[in-house]
Structure formats: C-alpha cells, structure tokens
C-alpha cells in the first residue's frame, strides 16, 4: 500500500492544518482526539481527510485519556497514529504517555500550548508545558520533545516527529503554541518522493524466534503489528525481554537503562537546531516556538545597530541540545533566553552553562508573545 505520489503543493494554511498535512505525508492513518482550543483544527481537518483515504480512521473519543489509549491501540495494530491536544488535555494524557514510553509504542502527540495552569487562557499562547512534556508522566523515562516556530516547520517537524517515533519506538511530543498553530502562512507540501518517511522495523525472524523486547546494538526491538502471527504480551509493568512482568533487579535495570540508551545514543540524530549569525556572536539568543520569530527580528535589528548577536533556535527541546548550547556558553559573554513561561528552557541552559556565561531571561506569562522590541532591549543590555 504505497502512498499515492503527489506533486509538491503550496497552501495558505494554519499551523494546525500544516500539522495534518505533515502527518498524512508521514503516513499517519489514525487519529483519535478530543476537542480542545487551540488544537481543535487538527482534529477537525483529520476528520475530513482521514475517512477519504484508503484506510484512514478518525475517532472522537470521550476524553483525552481515551484518545491516547486508542492511539496506542492503533499503533500496536500497526498504524502510524497521533492525537492532538492542549494543556488540560495534555495533563490527562500523561498516564498513557508513560504507558507508551514503557511499552515502546510509536505515536505522535501534538500539544498546542495555551496559558495555564489549569484551564488558564484557552485562546492565548504560552510555553508553560515544556518541562511537563519532559517530566509530566511519572517514573524515569526518556522522551523526545520537538517544537516549531512557523507553519512550514509545523509540517516539517510533524514528519520528523513520526520518523523519530517510528525509528526509536517512542512517543514523540510536538509542542506548538497558540500563535504558531493559528498563524496562516504559505506552506510548501513536498511530494512524497522528496520527503523522507521512516517506518518501524518489523521482525524478520519466524514468530517462534521473536523476542519482543530483546536488546540489540540499537536498543530498539522490531515491532510486529497485532494479528500478524507474532503473539506477545504488552504490559506497563516492568517486563523482561519476553514482555512478561518482572521485578528481578537485573531485568528491571536492563529495561530502564535500555529505554534511556536507545534515545541517548542517538542524540545527534535527534537534534534539530538552527544557528544564525553565531560565528562571531558575543551574545546569543536561545529560543524556540513562536518567540523564535520575534528573536529572529530582534537579532537582525541588533546586528543593524552593530551588536554582535547570534541566535540558536531549538526545534528539538528534549533531549536538550547540550552540545550546541555548551559551545555558545564558551564563546559568548551572555546568553539571552526569552520564553513565555517563568524559565523552563533557561533552566536547562543554566544547567549546561555551569556558570560560564551570563544568562539573561526574558519571561512573559500574560498571554502575549514576547515582542521583538522588548527582546532587542534585553539583547542590547547584555
């Protein structure tokens, strides 16, 4: 069942709509979700598009917990599956996000961040869920968290999110914000031939030789779809390589460490960062999401005024870009971290910085995007 070859198209689309285009391009054929502002357009567009495809399924579930449960079920049945939500729904999904980490089920979860805590500001942007995406579900687990700052990136990063999910058998969280999700821009939808799409590796051995959670160099076991003759047990309990619950210390240790290793050892593959004018920078702005757009303008304006300012845009938030940031901490006098929270990525920057450079934060939590003007002032001060 090869995807139909389609020519490159240009759309004038919302960030949320670009997510759908990206997902379909990446081979997503299953969406289960629950309406919540400001992510709802993703579900709405999926409900139009998926039933019109060869095998696409859209379900509106009774809540966000059920949505992610259905997505996990569908992924186990062999589908590339996703859901989309916003803050309150993301909180509800943490239970199953942990289950997906533990059972190594590939899926993509888009969280369009809005003001919080609690129901907060439903129609305003924020970046308050960054650390929740990393640590929201209980237990010690690795996870991949991506972000996007414009509509084209919404498409590109959704494709990447699926690719990482499939390649590493892990849930991937794509963090957007209300501004990025609700900005309409020109977006180029590449043809399927010019877009790399990865799929999970299925077992090549006979079923009786298949060890569902066997370790390997990559640390990512092959994954058969349910019903294909490879019968095995899936559990959220710590399990042995056969998938059966265990509390034996060595088996538990092996499992938890492999889960970390399979992400850690591919750190450089997972890193997506963009540097701009960093070669001679004395001050660098480290940014992500919609704030990155303001930052691009502020850096441009600072350069015009003669300040040596660079920019590091993070598209991968976790695993955190420690290598790129560390280099800047050695090179720059100061790092500026503007965010729409009280300091969630600056916390990571400070950890990597280890006291070398001066770290300046610029935090807005009033539901408004950090403006280029206020950021420029901070950059000039640094």
């Amino acid at each position, binding site marked *: 069942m090869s995807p139909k070859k389609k020519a490159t198209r240009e759309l*004038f689309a919302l960030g949320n709509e670009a997510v759908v285009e990206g997902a379909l391009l990446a081979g997503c054929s299953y969406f289960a979700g629950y309406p919540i502002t400001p992510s709802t357009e993703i579900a709405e567009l999926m409900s139009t598009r998926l039933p019109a495809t060869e095998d696409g399924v859209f379900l509106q579930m009774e809540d966000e917990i059920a949505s992610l449960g259905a997505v996990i079920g569908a992924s186990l049945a062999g589908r590339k599956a996703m859901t989309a939500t916003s803050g309150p729904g993301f909180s509800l999904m943490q239970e199953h996000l942990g289950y997906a980490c533990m059972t190594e089920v590939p899926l993509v979860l888009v969280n369009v961040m809005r003001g919080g805590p609690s129901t907060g500001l*439903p129609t305003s942007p924020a970046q308050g869920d960054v650390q929740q995406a990393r640590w929201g579900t209980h237990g010690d687990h690795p996870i991949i968290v991506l972000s996007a700052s414009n509509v084209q990136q919404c498409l590109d990063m959704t494709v990447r999110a699926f690719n990482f999910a499939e390649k590493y058998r892990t849930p991937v969280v794509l963090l957007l914000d209300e501004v990025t999700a*609700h*900005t*309409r821009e020109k977006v180029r939808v590449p043809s399927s031939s010019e877009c790399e799409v990865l799929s999970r590796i299925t077992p090549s051995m006979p079923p009786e030789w298949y060890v569902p959670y066997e370790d390997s160099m990559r640390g990512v076991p092959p994954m058969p779809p349910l019903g294909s003759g490879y019968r095995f047990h899936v559990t959220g309990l710590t399990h042995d390589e056969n998938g059966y619950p265990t509390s034996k210390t060595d088996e538990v240790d092996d499992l938890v460490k492999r889960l970390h290793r399979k992400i850690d050892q591919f750190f450089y593959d997972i890193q997506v960062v963009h540097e701009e004018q960093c070669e001679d920078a004395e001050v660098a702005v480290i940014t992500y999401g919609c704030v990155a*757009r*303001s930052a*691009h*303008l502020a850096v*441009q304006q600072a350069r015009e005024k003669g300040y040596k300012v660079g920019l590091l845009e993070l598209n991968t938030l976790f695993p955190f870009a420690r290598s790129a940031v560390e280099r800047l901490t050695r090179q720059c006098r100061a790092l500026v971290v503007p965010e729409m929270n009280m300091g969630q990525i600056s916390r990571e920057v400070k950890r990597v910085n280890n006291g070398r450079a001066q770290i300046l934060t610029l935090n807005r939590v009033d539901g408004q995007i950090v403006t280029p003007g206020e950021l420029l002032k901070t950059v000039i001060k640094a």
Partner: protein
Amino acid sequence: MKSPMQLNRFEIRLSGTGGQGVLTLGRILGHGLAIEHGYYVTQTQSYGPEARGGASRADLVVNSQPINYPKPEQLDFLVALSQEACNRYFQRLKPTGRLFVDTTLVTQTPSNQFWGLPCTEIAREKIGLVQATNIVALGALTHVLPFARPAAMKRSLEANLPAKILELNLKAFTAGYNQARKDIPDGPTQWTFS
C-alpha cells in the same frame, strides 16, 4: 497588469463584527497574496468567544522577505466594516497608514482621511445577499492595494469557496472592484510605502 511590488512588512488589519465574514476575508486575501502573488504572508486572527458575537478581526503581514514576527505591530492598512471596530483599532494605524471603511455601517470616522465604500449596501442591493459584504470589500481592497491583482484574487476565491456559492461571490467581487475604481480612482497612487 500591475507589476509585482517590493514590500517591507505591510501590515493589514481586517475588522468588523462577528458574522460579517472577516475571517473568511482574511483567509482569501491572505491566500491570494501568498499563493497567487507569491508574497510572504502571515495571517492571524482573534479566536474563541471573542470571534463570535462582538468584534472580529484578521491580521495580515505581507512582505517580499520572509516574515519573522507574525503579528502586526503598526498597521499600514485598517479595514473597518463596523463602527466599533473602527473606533477600537484606529489608534493602531501608522501616521502614513490608510483607513478603509464600509460607509453603510461606519458613519463617524475618526479622521477625514479615509476611503469609503458602502459594501453592505452593495451586497444587499446588487448581489441580493448581505453575507457577500466581505467579498465586496475584497473587490474594493484589490483595487486600492497597488500590489493586488484582480485575476489572482479571483483564483483565490475559487480555491477557497465551495463551487455552489462561487459564482455569486465572483459577482460580489467584481461589484466591489468596479465600484471602488469609480469612487476611489486615485486610491492605488495615494500610498506612501516605508
């Protein structure tokens, strides 16, 4: 045919009350400028309960270069289809910015420097459908914006509207465009671009 113009952050706010089709207008104008003209465009809008009932707005930033900050900072062009919207957003206009109003509904303009067209009336009288006000306005905007081409905007209408209401809307577009050409003949030349 107008030749493509170089633009540096041209900021447009389309405003009115809920139900006037301001968001649709924003989408069609944005699509036209982005896809059919090839500009960089970001279009944002008000969401939530605010977008029903009361004031409604859609913002566009148009640029020949990639756009960083997606929201308008200082408006080059304010389109107000209601008195309330005109009052609320007029202060955001640049000193060199232009105001366009629907004179059927906006009777008190804060400045005597404005362009006006009775869009609602045209929609009601000539098209027979008050819901076509937004497309009448689109026709007028296509005339007064020196970088907008009518053929491209018509293609945008085709791309964004269902077939069964397309013909009516093309008629509304043409009505708005022709009336603007008649009433505001020097509109396109009055701009000062930064």
